């Protein structure tokens, strides 16, 4: 190929990348101007989440799978580092600004524990967690693209029934607060890192620089989310609101749900999704991942994989399960595991134990459902 034929392709790529940056900035500016500064900043934070997760290939489901199947700890260690960095800022901040800043603090209960187990299994079936499904859909993964609307429907249904499930029995909300709470949280994370390193296969203990960078950037974005929104980074709530809005638009009636008749829920179903914090970061996750995929040379030219029909049916069922179970579990890998532990909620730890156990089931199910070659 000559220099003359290379030049237009290079020029087109620069043009595409310039367009991507301009579109991102324009979207943030438009939301800031026409919705509000807080909402524009949260869209920017969401775009940052999407860019970091897709650009530096940081995830949750994949690293758990790598640890379980191959005893490769790098991805899990990066997750633990990110959570610890957020905790160092968040737990003192929540203690010093009660009311103004809230944590991801929820009760441990039967439905919460079962929901976390199901979520852990379902996220391994489709290899996409809460954030992962959005990021993968944005970057053109067809499995996640199909799972996403059913994730939203499941989240709506789980929220609709949430109060019934929590009435089955739950402990009071248990939180680790102040300096002592931070010390216990960091000790717990250090202990978890120690277990992961102890179980690691020889020669796999080093964490790649890109994952360390991703952990630091994610932590900074998560802290920014907390300072701007007054609440931690979450994913699932926004998806449920999207489906609830669709349900109402189609003539559905929410008056039978204790969740959706609460004043806060009514306000958010009737309000703009551009004023809902989780919705804004969800939009940013999808768009940011799309931007990275469009930026990368050849990423969108990859051919789509072929799967048997049962794999697509399994994707639909897993999407519904992801959404429904994450509401019962008071969050997904982001809202419960990442933000829960980082803001001192014991339900985050319980979520992790149950979801990691569920991941074994999901890994066992995935090839049997046609989503990978059976070995």
């Amino acid at each position: 190929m000559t220099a003359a034929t290379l030049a237009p392709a290079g020029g087109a790529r620069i043009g595409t990348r310039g367009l991507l940056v301009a579109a991102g900035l324009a979207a943030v500016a438009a939301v800031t101007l026409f919705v509000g500064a807080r909402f524009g900043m949260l869209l920017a934070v969401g775009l940052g989440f999407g860019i970091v997760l897709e650009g530096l290939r940081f995830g949750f489901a994949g690293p758990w799978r790598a640890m379980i199947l191959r005893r490769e700890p790098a991805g899990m260690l990066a997750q633990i580092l990110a959570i610890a960095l957020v905790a160092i800022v968040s737990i003192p901040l929540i203690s010093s600004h009660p009311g103004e800043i809230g944590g991801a603090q929820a009760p441990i209960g039967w439905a919460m524990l079962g929901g976390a187990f199901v979520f852990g299994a379902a996220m391994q079936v489709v290899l996409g967690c809460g954030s992962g499904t959005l990021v993968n859909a944005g970057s053109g993964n067809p499995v996640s693209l199909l799972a996403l609307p059913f994730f939203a429907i499941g989240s709506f249904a789980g929220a609709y029934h949430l109060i019934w499930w929590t009435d089955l029995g739950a402990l009071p909300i248990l939180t680790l607060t102040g300096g002592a709470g931070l010390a216990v949280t960091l000790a717990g994370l250090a202990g978890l890192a120690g277990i992961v390193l102890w179980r690691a296969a020889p020669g796999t203990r080093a964490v790649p620089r890109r994952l360390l960078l991703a952990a630091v950037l994610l932590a900074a974005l998560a802290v920014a989310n907390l300072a701007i929104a007054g609440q931690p980074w979450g994913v699932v709530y926004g998806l449920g609101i999207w489906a609830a809005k669709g349900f109402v638009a189609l003539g559905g009636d929410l008056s039978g749900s204790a969740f959706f008749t609460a004043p806060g829920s009514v306000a958010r179903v009737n309000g703009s999704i551009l004023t809902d914090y989780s919705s804004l970061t969800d939009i940013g996750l999808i768009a940011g991942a799309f931007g990275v995929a469009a930026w990368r040379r050849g990423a969108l030219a990859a051919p789509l994989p072929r799967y048997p029909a049962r794999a697509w049916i399994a994707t639909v069922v897993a999407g519904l399960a992801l959404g429904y179970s994450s509401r019962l579990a008071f969050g997904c890998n982001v809202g419960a595991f990442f933000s829960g532990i980082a803001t001192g909620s014991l339900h985050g730890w319980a979520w992790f134990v149950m979801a990691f156990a569920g991941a074994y089931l999901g890994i066992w199910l995935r090839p049997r459902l046609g989503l990978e070659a059976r070995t």
Partner: protein
Amino acid sequence: MTRRLTAGIAIAALAVLVGLDLAASPPNPWQAPPAFALGSGQAASGGFCGALPG
């Protein structure tokens, strides 16, 4: 078919979702809260997956 199709569907669906929602529930920037919750003196009031509805 390539990922260009599926990524395009994802971003187009997102644009449709936001567009329909803007038409049905236009936001009012004059009711926007302070830029930062931290230091605002206002109680946190957003919806969150880890919380029961308020």
